[in-house]
Structures are given as structure tokens and as C-alpha cells.
């Protein structure tokens, strides 16, 4: 969480430093230069809105993950790893699907900028299908786990696993709704400004979710244990 906050602080600090905070408004009157610029950025509002929203989503996952790490580090591990979760092979496949989805969207964005509408449509569809495959795969993982006796309530480790993957899956589904709208917009085959913006926003959102998934994945696979050890050392 502190890491995440540091990133947010760095971004807002950089932004603030661009804003002439040291200006002395009481001495300035009338126009600066000929026409007063507001200092508003040239980004479309929707893109900025998505950026702020991603900060909120990032905060959400950073908190979930720090809750998990705290849980791991404040008490001895033996309760948590009770029956340690197996990292099902299916998770690798799912990760691949999400990467594919992200790449396809990036591709679609590039083609949208070049106005190659056929490619945009194909890539959007590929992205949607592979994202759906990811969600379906995650559900399959859940099924496999429950069948082999790792229930939601069996241990806190299991609970965290289901919670993290569940919340992430819901965000993918939400993204799919937006992607559906973008596909509908792209279908007429005309490169319009809102369509291109939609593709771009979807791509950014997908990359972000992929990043979060990679972090969650590494936690689940136990690669982040060293990091958890560091946290534990810091707290105790």
C-alpha cells in the first residue's frame, strides 16, 4: 500500500509542480500573455477520468494485497498455508489468455490510429474472446479447487485467493461490458473519433488489469514470499 501511495504521490507531485503553484495571483491581473491558459491538459476528459478511475482500482487492489501480506506477516505462516494452495496449471493458460487479450487490444489501438478498420474489428473480437476465455478459465480453476477440497472457508489463504481472483474477474467482466460497446461502435467500419477513443481506453484498462493479475498471480504462486518476508521483517 505504501508503495502504491508513493507512486500516486509521485504522480500528483509531478502534476502539481507543473501548475505554477508558486504564482502570486494577487499580483496578476488581466491576461497572462495574450490569452490566459488554464493549464488544463489536452487529454480528453474520458481518458483522464479513466486514469483517475485506475488510481481508485489500484488503491483497491493495493489494499487487498497489503491486507493479505499483513495477514501473512503478522502471524506465523502455519495457519495460512494450512493446506497450501496448489498453483493449478490452468492458471498459466489463463494468464496467457489475458496477455493475448491485452496484446490484441494494443494491436487494435494501433490499427485504429491507422484507420485500418478490418484489423480493428478482428483484434477487438480476439481480445473479447480471449478475455472471456480468461474468465471461464478462472471459473474452472475455482471448480478444480473446490473439487479437490480447497473451499472458500477452509483457510484464510483460500479466502484471500478466492477474493482476489473474484474481484479481479469482476473487473474484467466490467471491462468486457465497455469492450462490447466499443465493438458495437466499431462494427459499422467507420473510423470515428469516439470509436478510436473507446479502443484506446479499453487497451489502457486491459493493460492495467493484466498488470494487477501478474501481481496477484505471483502472490498465488508464492514467488512473492521473499517480499512478504521483507514486510514481516519491517513490521516485527
Amino acid at each position, binding site marked *: 500500500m505504501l508503495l502504491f501511495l508513493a507512486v500516486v504521490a509521485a504522480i500528483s507531485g509531478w502534476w502539481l509542480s507543473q501548475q505554477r503553484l508558486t504564482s502570486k*495571483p494577487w499580483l496578476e491581473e488581466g491576461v497572462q500573455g495574450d*490569452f*490566459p491558459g*488554464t493549464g488544463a491538459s489536452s487529454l*480528453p476528459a474520458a481518458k483522464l477520468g479513466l486514469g483517475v478511475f485506475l488510481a481508485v482500482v489500484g488503491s483497491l487492489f493495493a489494499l487487498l494485497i497489503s491486507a493479505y501480506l*499483513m495477514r501473512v506477516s503478522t502471524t506465523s505462516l502455519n495457519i495460512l498455508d494450512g493446506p497450501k494452495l496448489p498453483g493449478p496449471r490452468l492458471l498459466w493458460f489463463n494468464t496467457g489468455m489475458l496477455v493475448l487479450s491485452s496484446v490484441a487490444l494494443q494491436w487494435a489501438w494501433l490499427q485504429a490510429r491507422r484507420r485500418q478498420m478490418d484489423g480493428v474489428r478482428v483484434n477487438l473480437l480476439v481480445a473479447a474472446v480471449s478475455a472471456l476465455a480468461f474468465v471461464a478459465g478462472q471459473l474452472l480453476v475455482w471448480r478444480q479447487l473446490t473439487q479437490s477440497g480447497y473451499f472458500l472457508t477452509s483457510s484464510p489463504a483460500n479466502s484471500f485467493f478466492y477474493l482476489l481472483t473474484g474481484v479481479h474477474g469482476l473487473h474484467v467482466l466490467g471491462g468486457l461490458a465497455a469492450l462490447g460497446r466499443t465493438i458495437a461502435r466499431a462494427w459499422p467500419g467507420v473510423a470515428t473519433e469516439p470509436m478510436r477513443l473507446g479502443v484506446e481506453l479499453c487497451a489502457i484498462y486491459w493493460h492495467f488489469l493484466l498488470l494487477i493479475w501478474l501481481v496477484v498471480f505471483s502472490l498465488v504462486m508464492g514467488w512473492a514470499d521473499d517480499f512478504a518476508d521483507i514486510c514481516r521483517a519491517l513490521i516485527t
Partner: protein
Amino acid sequence: MGEVIFGSGGVVPAAELPDVELYHAKTWITKYVFSQDAKVIAVQYSITAMAIGVVALVLSWLMRLQLGFPGTFSFISAEGYYQFITMHGMIMVIYLLTALFLGGFGNYLIPLMVGARDMVFPYANMLSYWLYLLAVLVLVASIFAPGGPTGAGWTLYPPQAILGGTPGAEAGIILMLLSLILFIIGFTMGGLNYVVTVLQGRTRGMTLMRMPLTVWGIFTATVMALLAFPALFVAAVMMLFDRTLGTSFFMPSLVSMGEHLKYGGGSPILWQHLFWFFGHPEVYIVALPAFGIVSDLISVHARKAIFGYRMMVWAIVIIGALSFVVWAHHMYVSGMNLNFGFFFAVTTLIIAVPTAIKVYNWVLTLWHADIHLTVPMLFALGFVVTFVNGGLTGLFLGNVVVDLPLSATMFVVAHFHMVMGVAPILVVFGGIYHWYPKVTGRMMDDRLGKLHFWVTFLGAYAIFFPMHYLGLIGVPRRYYELGETAFIPKSAETLNVFITLAALIVGAAQMVFLFNLVRSLFNGRLAGGNPWNATSLEWQTPETPPAHGNWGKELPVVYRWAYDYSVPGAERDFIPQNQPPAGVAAQATITAVSAAH
């Protein structure tokens, strides 16, 4: 979107945005009920918040009746008392203050003050209100649920919050958590609007450092809320899982009524960390808009530029940043590591520095000013005094060694009511008296307003000053009744009766306010466009109340900051932000001054 790019790389929005960008309501329903106009949404937010606030007010009466006259009222049971405490706290902090400052004042003032036609995402803004209303309704529903609302205290500490024996553990707690989740989703939609509108919606000439402090306060508070509310969201979802699905995020293995429960392996402390990671920024989410509004009220009604505008902006931002690293000062008694406690005590005390800067600047703004003791000004002054009072006891409680003995006493109750109960509420009132003429076109009644102020202000001190003393002699908080306790003198009971009477009177004074609010709608004196002779943009709209789209045909252009009061040589004692420099006689001198710098 038509945009003109200027040499310096800055982008200036066109004077007129294409008409399609603005949503136009076609039917009565979309104009006044499912409205996407920020001004209507603001009024909806405010009315809902005040309505649920009246519920919380009545709950506080019930609590005081019990404390003042224990055992007299058969309808107040011990369970009921805890439910009153919980709902009173939750409603006041989240559903009243947060919603009113950000949803009410934010929605109304941000677009008008920065010179925008509306919020940038009006549809999400509308959803935000309806989710808020739904959250309030779910909260109200919990009062009528079997077993009543939750009585776990507003902090909802596990494990007791979801265990049998706590009132409302059956349905109340589930509805409470659902309501919070809805509120947070709704707030996020609104919050995105407030932030992006401030960043992108400003009109020509409105640089960040020309924005009124009200906008700065609301903007910073919204950014904080967007980052802090996820903590409550995560915590609420996890507790909901614990309660309904039987997970053990917060639940250690425990024995209840001689039975081993199915829980095990969870950590109750984890909840405290998550809750207070939200909970402390929440204090400033309420306080920063109040700071901003008070700065503007004082400046307008003292006819003087706010002292140290730049410092005020910096202080707001610094307070916002610091408030994320102080949360554990609510947890000194949780048995934390001493070094941890030391760290959080230091950060807590550091916040006093920017806060003190703000207080000095308010006082210095009043120095040699042309003070008009209007009703909004009275409330603003009341805020400054009350906030200093509450802040000073905060310095006591910020220290670990002082906090430990006082933590469970009425001293804490007195402290947080002063600093984040009474003080922000005074600003809410001041703000309503100040902007009511803009919202409705009519003034609120002055005499009723002054009566309301004096009873509320003096009454609040009659309630909360004695509580400090009660806390110091050891009267515990959260107790349904004190019973026979050796160390508590008889006089404490008399004092409790006095506090209860004061609370009843102050509560009744709020009815005067509500009466005034409604009556002035029909009978108030017509206000005109700018009754306070204020400079900021919301007073310069072509119509009052502002029409849909706020600014007639063309957006205003801003030539100066929001605090040009009593400028020497100017024909009036205020110069509106959108008045071009050519019209000012003092133009030459001012240019000379700025050239000298």
C-alpha cells in the same frame, strides 16, 4: 471538441462548446427527478443528507435522554442504546457530512466556480446520487430489519460486530455493510466527476491558482476520498464474506456460548488497520471542504482578500497528503509496537503545523477588515473558534501516553465532536445561509438565522465543554449507564442532566433552521444575482438561480483571482473575477506593482 492551441503549449477551450455536449432534459422527470444537471443533483444530495441527518439528530436525543436520566425511559434498552450510538455515528460522518460537502456543495459549486456548464460526466453524476439514495434507504431498512440495526459501534470492530449477542448481528450488520458498499460505488462515480471537472472543465483564464479555496478544499478532499474509500470497501466486502459465507478474514478461532465457532485464523487487527486507513482521511475529507468554504465566507464577509492564499492552498494539499500516514493513532490501545506508536504520534503532531497556518491566516484575514456580522460570517467565526478548541484537545490525544488513559472516556467524545462534528456542521450552516440566495433566488430570514446561530453555537459548547471534564474524571464512553461507581462523583450525574437539556435545546434550534429553509423558499426577500457583493464566478451568472448550462451563450473569461476585495482605487469594494482589466481605474497602478515584483 473545438480547441484552440496556444503558443505556450497550453490548451484553451473554445469560448462556446458545441451544443450537443450538454445534455438537455426533455420531460419533467428528467429535469427534476432523474436529472443530469449538477445543480439539481446537488439539491437532491443536500435534501437527502439533511433528512437522514434529522434521524441521526433524534438518535442523539435518545442517547442523551438515557445518559441524563438513566432508567427513566423504558423504551431505551441497553441494546437500543448501542444501536443509537452506531447509527448516529455512521449517519453523521458518512451519510450526512461526506455526502453534503462533496455531493451537495461539490456538485453545486464546482461547475459554477470554475466556469463550467456542468460536470464532465453528467450521467455518472446522476447515477452517483441514485446509488447514494439507495444506500440511505438500505441503511434505513436496517432499522426495521429483524433484530434492528447493528449496534457494533460506528467502527464495526470484529469479531463482536458479527457475533450473536451484539444487537443487529442477524440482519442489521449485513444491511449496514451493503449500504456502505453502495455508498462507496456511488461516491466513486461522483468523485471522478469532481476531480476531472476541476482538472478539465475550467473556463478560460481560470488557472488552478485562481480557483476559490472552496474548490481547492473539495477537490483535495475528493482525491483523498477516492484513495481512502477503497479501504472501507475492501474491509466491508471481507466482513460481509465473514458474516454470510463463513470465511475468517477477521475472525480468530473463538468460543461463544460454550461452543467452538467455525471461524479460525483471521485477524481482528487487520480490520482496524483497514478501517482507520479510511477513517482518518475521512476526518479530513470532511474538514478540507469546510476549510475551503470558511476561507471564502471570511473573505467575502470581511471584504478583504484571504491572507496567504498560496499558503492556504499548500496547507490543504499537505494536510491531505499527511492524513494518509496517521491512521494508527486511532489504535494506540490495540497493543501495537511502541515504535509504531511513536511514528504515528509524530506524524499526527506534524499535521498541526499546516492546520495552524490556516488558523493564523483566517485570523489575519480578519485583522483590520471591514467585518460584516452576517449569519454566514457568524457561523464561519464560530467554526474557527470551535476548530481551535477541538484541535487543541487533539494535540493531547495525539500523544500515546496521554491517549492511553483517556481513550475510553468522554474526553475523546468531546474532542471528536468539537473538531469534526460541531465545527464542520457550523460550516455547513454557514455555507447554506451564504449560497441559499444563489440556489433559490431568495434570502433566508436574518433574525431566525441569528437565533439559530447563537443557540447552536452556545448550546454546542454547553454540551461538549463539560464532557471534557467528565472524561478527565474518568467517566467512560460507550456505557449505557454508570451505575454505582466509586470514583465518579454525584456531580457527574447533575452535569449529565445539564448536557442532556442543552442537547434537547440545540436539537430544537435545528427545527428553526429547517423552518427558515422552507419558509424562505416562498417568503424570503428577493436576493438578486449577487447579494453579498462577492467576486467569485458563481455570483456572476446571467440568471439567478442559474439556468441549465449556467452561463447563457458564452462561458465567462477569468481575468483575476477570486479575492479582489477592497482594492485601492477600484470603484466598488469588490472586482468580479470575470471583469476585464480595462474597466478598472486602478489598472495602471496594479500593473506597476506587479512589474515591480
